[in-house]
């Protein structure tokens, strides 16, 4: 079982590396933000698998923290990264 989960973990890390390449190449800001989101999600999945494989049950707490902080960071990434679209003007952040 550990072997299977380790293999799954390696696979998720590969996905994460692809996400990294995507941010590197772009081309648009939107693609980069999507890639950042993919990295966050796959990072959390990798952390959960790693916790199970390594027998560190506190990894779930780390994943919880990471989920909250990744949410915060990607929201500020999207908001600040789109500031050239004047996202800070009243009512302009959402389509409504």
């Amino acid at each position, binding site marked *: 079982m550990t*072997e299977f989960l380790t293999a799954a973990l390696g696979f998720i890390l590969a996905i994460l590396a692809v996400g990294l390449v995507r941010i590197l190449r772009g081309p648009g800001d939107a693609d980069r933000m999507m890639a950042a989101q993919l990295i966050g999600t796959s990072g959390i999945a990798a952390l959960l698998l790693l916790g199970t494989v390594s027998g560190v049950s*506190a990894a779930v*707490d*780390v994943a919880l*923290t990471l989920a909250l902080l*990744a*949410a*915060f960071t990607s929201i500020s990434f999207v*908001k600040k990264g789109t500031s050239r679209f004047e996202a800070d003007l009243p009512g302009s952040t959402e389509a*409504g």
Partner: protein
Amino acid sequence: MTFASMSFALALEIVLAAVVLTGAVWTVASRETLPAVAGFVAYGLLLSLVWVRLGAPDVALTEAAIGSGLTGALLVGAAARLRSGEEQIVMERPGMVLRVLATMLSTTVAAALAASVLLLPDPAPTLAPAAAENAVATSLGNPVTNVLMAFRAMDTMLEKIVLLLALIGVWSLTPDRFWGGRPGPRHHADPQGVLAFVARVLPPVGIIVGIYILWTSADHPGGAFQGGTILAAMWLLVMMAGLADTPPVSERRPRLLLLAGPMVFLIVGLGGLAFGDAFLAYPMAYAKLLILTIEFAMILTIAVTLGLLVAGPPERECGS
């Protein structure tokens, strides 16, 4: 453990290290700043995986919360503001000679470090048995909390004061006419929009998780910094969605909160001097109670300090 599963685990570690270094290379090599920052955040996220693998979930929590999350938000904000000045600086790339010299220097340093890692003494020196032996004194089950709050409590207290000093340094960069005003821009968002929605739904969950991380730190990985960082992030999210404004730095309440943690720490420390053996010596019967009191005062102080550090110096007058 069989040999096959050993090498399987080793392969995993090599893959993990390779992905971590990809993030690091790209943080340095990327031409644009915002992707470099995104790379750094990804690097921090992967680093917390490494910390879990190294058997240090306490550090993994700190890295996930502060090292990657909050630093990332800080850097993203700065990168977005500096964007207009970027083109000009890209022109002034360093010369060939400097780059070759820098490559040689950093390769030498990396090689020396690698050599010293390979030549580390065996068996490794460790203070773990000493930490386990003295754990009785505090009746806390988490050795890292023991070190931070009891054995090396002085470091932790001074670290809080460093945080406070950094905030004073940031505030002292305020332009004269905004002194005492509110930090950061006033964010506006559609109150019915998705950002306002998530800023209403996520913070209650975040507050519970933050307090849980503190509460569990007595016997499991966690602590006041990690919990406080989550609280700070939730506060910043609410401000980013325009549901609340940053407090003016001249207001009394946030200032009291900024001082609460270090003051409680100092009072307990001086109490140790008066009633116990030394500064910060906890009487054995009250050790756990005192440590938890300090940590609860700390989590509020840390949340407010970190939030205000990310918000930056005041740049508006109180009314605007």
